[in-house]
């Protein structure tokens, strides 16, 4: 079980997360929705150990995380919305490096498969800075998937991706889910015809569980660009939930 208990975080005087608690089950894909600035990215950063919460605990299989010497945990990978890479290493060398660090067996075959799946096989010898934003996002996802993390957090993974790549990501996440990984991604939308196991709404510094219907209606609202209406409607939705 991945458990978040009474987590609080603030930027100076601005409280972003307040006594926030929720749980994820193994082999579960959870979607985290919420309007811009609600604190989704901050929450994911805290869960991944990139930011230190003021209070609260994060537990993986009853083990309190980020208490040992390392601030990050090798079981957890977080793919941010704008990942950066080593300028001097090619795509293939990035995969080679992290596969070696994680001691991934048969990494070359796995890397080949993922590159083909994400249509990056022709760019294997390219430097990441020469790629488009979508291709860099694909590389980041491949890097995360190749190490098969126990916990995977993704921040707006579908943003710069085309429809094919979005579907590929979802398929790969289902593969990872089959290994029993915990997967939490922030997104306003899901690929056509796909369903998550759990829907979470980030609102008023808290996370609430909502159902698929509410998520669908909320996605429509979040993609509606009038923020005042959006806030009001989201509040109603949350109250209903």
């Amino acid at each position, binding site marked *: 079980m991945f458990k978040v208990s009474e987590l609080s975080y603030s930027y100076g005087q601005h409280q972003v997360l307040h006594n926030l608690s929720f749980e994820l089950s193994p082999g579960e894909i959870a979607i985290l929705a919420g309007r811009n600035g609600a604190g989704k990215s901050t929450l994911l950063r805290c869960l991944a150990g990139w930011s230190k919460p003021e209070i609260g605990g994060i537990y993986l299989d009853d083990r309190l995380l980020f208490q040992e*010497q*390392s601030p990050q945990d*090798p079981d957890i990978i*977080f793919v941010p919305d704008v990942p*950066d890479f080593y300028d001097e*290493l090619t795509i293939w060398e990035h995969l080679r490096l992290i596969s070696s660090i994680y001691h991934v067996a048969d990494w070359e075959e796995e890397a080949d498969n993922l590159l083909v799946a994400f249509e990056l096989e022709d760019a294997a010898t390219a430097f990441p800075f*020469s790629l488009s934003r979508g291709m860099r996002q694909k590389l980041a996802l491949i890097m995360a998937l190749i190490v098969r993390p126990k916990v995977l957090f993704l921040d707006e993974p579908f943003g710069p991706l085309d429809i094919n790549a979005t579907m590929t990501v979802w398929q790969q996440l289902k593969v990872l889910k089959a290994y029993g990984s915990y997967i939490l991604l922030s997104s306003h939308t899901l690929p056509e015809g796909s369903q998550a196991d759990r829907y979470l709404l980030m609102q008023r510094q808290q996370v609430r569980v909502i159902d698929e219907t509410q998520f669908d209606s909320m996605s429509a609202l979040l993609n509606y660009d009038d923020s005042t209406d959006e806030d009001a409607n989201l509040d109603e939705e949350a109250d209903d939930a």
Partner: protein
Amino acid sequence: MRDLAILGRLEAKRLRSKLNYWLKVLGMDPEDSRFYRIYVGLFWLYWVFFMWSYGTENVYQISRRLPSDATGSIAQFIPIVIFIGQILYLFSVFRNQPVRLNGADIAYLAISPIHRGYLVFINLLLNTWLPTLFIAVVSCFVGMLIVWQAMPGTVGLAGLFAAITMALLVFITTTLAWSISMFRLRPDGGTFRLASWVIFPILIIVAVALPQITFFPGFVWVSAVTEGLTPFIGALLVALSALGILLLVFTGRRVDMPVIVEENQMYARIARLGPYASYYARDLIVRIHKQHRLMKRRRVRFALMTSRNNFITLMSQSVLMSLRESSFSFIMLILQGFMVTSIVGTVVSAAGLDKIQTWALIVLGLMMSRRPDIASTFRSAMQTPWLRQFLPSNVPMVLAAYSVYSFGLIYLGSLIAIAVAFPSYILTGATFSLFIGITLTIWQAFTVVPEKHIFKRELQYEASVLVSGIPIVAVGFFSQSLPMTMITTAFIMVIAGYLLYQSYPFSS
């Protein structure tokens, strides 16, 4: 000619806008009252006059102190300096084509049917007027220095002729160099592009065999300074300048513009950062240059070694990244260790450890020895949490693996310097150098790792060296004992290591 007029008007507008900006920076806002603008103008005029007088006074004082035959030697040396300058400039435009276009130029001018020869010519004027002015001023001072002792009455005229002649020589050199560069960049110039490098050995052979030809520009300058600028020489220089313009317009007309546009993507990116980018976005500019180099350069045939042992994998990564950044990085690292140790050793042996200046120079030398960075790979990984999360959780091991290559080569250079220049101090020097090297590596790690106990933030490398240098200097200066100084250095190293180990992410 119509295209030339259009480009001229466009650049005049841009120049006016730039001029307004810099005038505002100097305190002369066009919206200020006329009297205030006159006041600011007079202030800057006075400043220029004062600086000019200061420069002239210094030239006079130097000329008085020089032996009488020294100015003759300087005059003989000038043609060689000018020739070397010309060769180096030609080499630089061979390596990187000289036309500089910003984003707007690329978007509107480069793809337009405007005459490319005029575009290149205007670009030359814009890019060379400021360096030409600077070289002319320096040349003016050098000219005055040469004649001040022998012909004090003609110093002013000699300076003027030196400046004019040098400006024309620079113009002729740049137009010729740009013309050759543009000729190399014509669409069907592939073979010539490679073959044209032969010009450098040819020029050097000609310089040895026929110095009267290769050093002619220098002789012209010396003659203008010592004997005055004759109408014939003046006319010759103007004619050559005109010829240079024609040649440039002719060769520029057929230039392969897509190649120039491609080359200028990097400069356009840097130009977008604004006029002060070199101060506030230096790291970003360095990164843009690095990315451009990586794209252009042939990939180093060195595979990333991977192993079950993470230390070896990470060390291999740092070696590969270092070699990709510069193929000669390993030589540069050895040279850096060699040079810093040689300088420190020479200063110590020449001035002695009993002078505070010696110690100040040592600390200064260590502060300036930052580049190439010992822990650059560690820094780039630590600054990016996304990459850091893939690294092993043993951060001290990560730092050691990422630093061992650079550190090892710098230390090797240091050992070579000690063995060659100060063999009797090999053991002491090697130990001292090791302690200092480890301490510097730790200080470099603190540039990305916030120190937890004392400063509670990342530390500037130079500040760290200064802080740790003060106790070492104090102990060394007052005790005059090398063992005591070494013990202090070791103590500082241990303290720095402890502080680093206690800091995040070494310790949460």
